[in-house]
């Protein structure tokens, strides 16, 4: 069979794999919903969780589609479709593909038509490199969760603070990242201010939503505040980038 990075058989193989991963998501969704019912959790609250999660996911998922398009220029559609639906992310996959291609004397973005041998080699590098998290979670998850539970048992207040500290630590790292190009301002280049301004627009929208909930009692706003602040920030990025470069 003649090889092409967009060969129909590759779409079939990837389709089967993605269906399996989709089945895992559906399995865990049903399992969690069943447990929620047993715990007597409010059905309306659960419906809201489902809706909010779905709405929130749309914009980041569209960004992932753009990543698929970008990677498909070198690798065809099936492999990026697989890698970005399962385990991967744009930055990981680009680095893995670039390293694999340069190891074979190719240049990422200008590889041209890949041979089956090159394609298999790239797919193997991407797959083997990224797999650790998948098997490490079954190995460590129970131990880590048990550690959290026993900490909670020993000191409930510290258990709550510990959990909040984890979230705050993660958010602080990303807030810092927003300022990573800020120092360009010291050299007269304002482009480093773009992510900072976008972050402030998004934060302002979220703060306004919080204010509306508190003062006007518009509780329905809180359900969609995060996706709306996300889209508002992204939309604001267009004029801000045109303005600051």
């Amino acid at each position, binding site marked *: *069979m003649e090889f092409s990075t967009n060969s129909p058989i590759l779409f079939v*193989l990837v389709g*089967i794999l993605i269906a399996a991963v989709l089945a*895992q*998501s559906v399995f865990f969704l049903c399992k969690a919903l069943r447990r929620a019912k047993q*715990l007597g*959790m409010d059905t309306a609250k*659960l419906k809201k*969780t489902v809706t*909010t*999660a*779905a709405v*929130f*996911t749309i914009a980041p*998922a*569209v*960004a992932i589609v*753009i990543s*698929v*398009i970008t990677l*498909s220029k070198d690798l065809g*559609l099936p492999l990026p479709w*697989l890698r*970005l*639906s399962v385990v991967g992310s744009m*930055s990981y996959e680009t680095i893995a593909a670039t390293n694999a291609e340069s*190891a074979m004397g190719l240049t990422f973005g200008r590889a041209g038509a890949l041979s*089956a*041998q090159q394609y*298999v*080699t*790239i797919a*193997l590098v991407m797959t083997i*490199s990224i797999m650790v998290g*998948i*098997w490490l*979670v079954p190995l460590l998850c129970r131990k*880590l969760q048990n550690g*959290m539970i026993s900490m909670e048992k020993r000191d409930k207040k510290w*258990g709550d603070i*510990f*959990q*909040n500290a*984890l979230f705050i*630590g*993660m958010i602080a790292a990303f807030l*810092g990242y*927003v300022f*990573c190009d800020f*120092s360009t301002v010291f050299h007269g280049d304002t482009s480093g201010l773009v992510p*900072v301004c976008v*972050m402030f*627009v998004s934060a302002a929208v979220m703060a306004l939503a*919080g204010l509306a909930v508190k003062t006007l009692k518009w509780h329905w706003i809180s359900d969609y505040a*995060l996706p709306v*602040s*996300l889209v508002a*920030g*992204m939309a604001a990025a267009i004029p801000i*980038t045109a303005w600051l470069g």
Partner: protein
Amino acid sequence: MKTQKTYLDTVYRDGAIWNLSVMVLLFLFPVAVALIFSAVPDWHGLALGLLATAPMYWAVAVVETVTYVPMLGAGGSYLSFVTGNIANLKLPCALNALEQAGVKANSEEGEVVSTIAIAVSSIVTTLIIALGVVLIVPLTPLLSAPALEPAFAQILPALFGGLGVVFVSKNWKLAVAPVVLMLALFIFVPALNAGTVGIMVPVSVLFTLGVSRILYKKGVL
């Protein structure tokens, strides 16, 4: 307590079965392509490519597992580490769901809500990507339009601006020190950029845990 253990036990068992099965299936993809097209890997290229990529990815995976599993919960972790895009999608989605539902992450209700949010997010992401692949011809000019490029380039600042307001305002005593440290590091250390933010997450988490322990012991929290 016994019921909670039983539910979590089944999550650990099912999660292990699913994750290990998916791992085997993923590995079968390059093997199947090699068999179908009678292609032997370029062993030299494979070794060099792995040497350049795998050690870094494996180290990051270990750190990410230890850092993210306590935040994602059991069910959410099994799913997130299979479906990917954790920091930029699954974790913010779970955090938002916990906040909206008004449940604590370390409660069983929190475990359930986090799993539901991550499962829904994974399903929606998979469907949108599949739709994008099917409609790639009409979508490419639209999504690759230069006018829209800045919007998608700034997705993380837009995401963490909103999320930051919610969590920093509720835990401002906890947040001051790590936010100041991260801002200073990212502004004044040129080596820190989009590529290194994943490495800085555990650094920031460890620092925040240390600071919160001190504040807790001093009775500030």
